[in-house]
C-alpha cells in the first residue's frame, strides 16, 4: 500500500448546514426548468392551443356568413366554438400528456435515484415538478386564449363582412373563463401527477388518463358526473352561454364541479406526498 500525504482531512465533527426548504425548492426548480429544453412536454405546451383555434378559424373563414346570419357581434359564437372544441376532449388529454411527459423526463434518464441522492429534500423534488406542470398548464391556456383573440382579429382583417373588427372583445368573460377553466384542470392534473410519480412509467399514467377521459364522456349523464375530476374542464367549457341578446355569459363564481376539482387536487397531492415521502428508491 502506498502511503500518501493526504491534504487536510475534512472536519468531521461539524455538521454541514443544509439550505432552508425554500432554497432547496428554488434550486430544484432551476434544474427542472433547464431539463425542459428540447422536450416534447415543452413543444406540447407551446403548440397544443393552436389546433382548436385553427379549427374554429377555418370554420368561420369558410362558413362564418352562415353561422352569423342573425348579425350582431361574432365574438361570442367564435369564442365558445373554440373553447368547447378545446375544453371537451383536448384539454383533459393535454393535461394527461403534459404531466406524464414532465415526470417521464426523470424516468427516462433513470434519474430518480440520482435526484433523491442530492442534498435536497423529497418535498422539494415533489413540489418543484408540480409547480413546473402548473406553470406549463397556465402557459398553454394563456397561449390558447391569445390565439383565439388573435385568430378573431385576423378574421376581422381577412373577412371584414363577419364584423370581428367592428365589435369589442368580451374581455371580462374571457378572463373569468380562463381562470375557471384552469381551476377545472387542477383536480385531474393532481391525480395524474401522483399516478405518474407512483408508477414511474409513461405508459401507465397515459393509459389511466385516456381511460378515465373516455369513461368520463360515457358517464356525463350520471348524477355524480360533477364529482369526476376528468369531467370538470368539459363542464366548465359548456357552462359558457350566450344570452338571447347575443351577449356571452359565464358564472362569476366557481361552479360546484370546480370546487370538486380543487378538492381532488388537494386530496390527491396530500395522499401522493405522504405515499412518496417515505418510499424506498429501488431499481
Amino acid at each position, binding site marked *: 500500500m502506498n502511503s*500518501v500525504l493526504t491534504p487536510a482531512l475534512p472536519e468531521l465533527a461539524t455538521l454541514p448546514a443544509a439550505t432552508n426548504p425554500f432554497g432547496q425548492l428554488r434550486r430544484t426548480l432551476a434544474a427542472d426548468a433547464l*431539463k425542459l429544453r428540447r422536450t416534447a412536454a415543452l413543444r406540447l405546451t407551446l403548440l397544443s392551443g393552436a389546433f382548436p383555434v385553427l379549427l374554429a378559424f377555418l370554420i368561420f373563414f369558410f362558413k362564418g356568413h352562415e353561422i352569423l346570419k342573425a348579425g350582431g357581434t361574432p365574438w361570442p359564437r367564435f369564442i365558445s366554438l373554440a373553447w368547447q372544441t378545446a375544453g371537451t376532449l383536448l384539454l383533459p388529454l393535454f393535461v394527461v400528456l403534459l404531466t406524464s411527459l414532465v415526470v417521464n423526463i426523470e424516468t427516462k434518464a433513470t434519474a430518480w*435515484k440520482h435526484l433523491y441522492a442530492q442534498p435536497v429534500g423529497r418535498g422539494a423534488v415533489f413540489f418543484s415538478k408540480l409547480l413546473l406542470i402548473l406553470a406549463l398548464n397556465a402557459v398553454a391556456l394563456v397561449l390558447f386564449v391569445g390565439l383565439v383573440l388573435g385568430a378573431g382579429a385576423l378574421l376581422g382583417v381577412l373577412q371584414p363582412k363577419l364584423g370581428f373588427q367592428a365589435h369589442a372583445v368580451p374581455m371580462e368573460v374571457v378572463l373569468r373563463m380562463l381562470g375557471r377553466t384552469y381551476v377545472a384542470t387542477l383536480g385531474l392534473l393532481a391525480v395524474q401527477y401522483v399516478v405518474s410519480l407512483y408508477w414511474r412509467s409513461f405508459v401507465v399514467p397515459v393509459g389511466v388518463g385516456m381511460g378515465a377521459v373516455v369513461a368520463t364522456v360515457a358517464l356525463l349523464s350520471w348524477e355524480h358526473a360533477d364529482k369526476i375530476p376528468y369531467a370538470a374542464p368539459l363542464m366548465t367549457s359548456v357552462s359558457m352561454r350566450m344570452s338571447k341578446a347575443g351577449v356571452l355569459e359565464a358564472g362569476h363564481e366557481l361552479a360546484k364541479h370546480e370546487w370538486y376539482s380543487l378538492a381532488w387536487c388537494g386530496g390527491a397531492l396530500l395522499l401522493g406526498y405522504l405515499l412518496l415521502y417515505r418510499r424506498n428508491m429501488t431499481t
Partner: protein
Amino acid sequence: MNSSSSPLLATHGLCFSFGKRPILHDVNLRVEPGSIYGFLGPNGAGKSTTMRLLLGLLRPAAGSVQLFGHDLARHRVALLGRVGALIENPSLYDHLTGHENVEATRRLRGVAAHRTAEVLALVGLTDNAHRPAREYSLGMRQRLGLAIALLSDPDLLLLDEPTNGLDPNGIIEMRELMRRLRQEQGKTIVVSSHLINEIEKVATHVGVIQQGRLVFQGSLPDLQRLQTGRTRLVLETQDADTCRNLLPRLLAGATPAGPGTLWLPWVSREHTAEVAAAVTAAGLPLYGLHLEQPSLEDTFLHLTEARPTLA
C-alpha cells in the same frame, strides 16, 4: 485497520430486506478518511443495496448509517451535500448536452457556476461538452456521470461499479482518476466491484460481501496476509498414493491433486526440508517441491464461496 481514528463512514448492524426476502444482514462497514475502500462481492451479494442505503435511497430495516460522524437518517440533506455518488449506470438526460447535464445538477446543488467547466475538464469531456448525451459512448457516459458526482467537490465519493461496460483503456483511466482524487485532493472513495483485479491496484482497504454478509473487512495488506495463510506446498513424485502410504505421519494433511501430485498446507521451512528428506529416504523419486501462493482472486473466490465467520 487503525481503529483509533474516527471513520468517515460507518454502518452499524445494517439490515435490509425486500418484503420477506432478506438482502443484507448485520453489515458493519468502516471506511477511514482518505482511503479508497474497495467494496467487493459477486453480483447479487448486496453491493448496490448497501450503496443505496448509504445514500438514504432505502430505509434500513435495522441498524444505522453514520456519515462524517452524524446519523444519516436524521441529517440526510445536510450530509448528502458532502457526498458525490455514481449509482449503477449514470442518470443522464439524453435530450440535453453533456454540459447541460452537468449544469442541471449544478443548479440543483447550488454549486458555483465555474465548477461545470472544471469537472468536464477533469474527466476529459470539454471537447464533447456541447454534443447531446445520447451521442455519447458508454465510456463517455460513465465519465460524465463521474463529473456530475464530482461537482460539489465532495469529501466522500460513492461509486457503484464505475467500470461497468468500460473497455480496458477506460478501466485504466478510471483507476488513474480515483488514485489522483485521493492523492491530490484527499478524497475518500468507496468503490464497488465484482472483480478483485479491478480493485486491488487502487484500493487501500477492502470489504468483501457475500449473500448479504460482510465476510472480510480490512486493509489490502490484511487481505494479502489472509492469503499467505493459504499457501501450499506442491510435491511431485511418481505415485502420490504410495508416497502418502509410506509417510503417514508427515503427509497426513496432504490431498492428492493428480496421480503424482500432492498438496500440503505450508507450515515452515524446516517442515519443507523434512518432507524432502523423508521422501528421498523412503526411496521415492522427488521430481519437484515448490510453494504455491493463491492469487488475490483465489482468495476472493474462496471468501465468496464458503461462508466463513466474520474476519
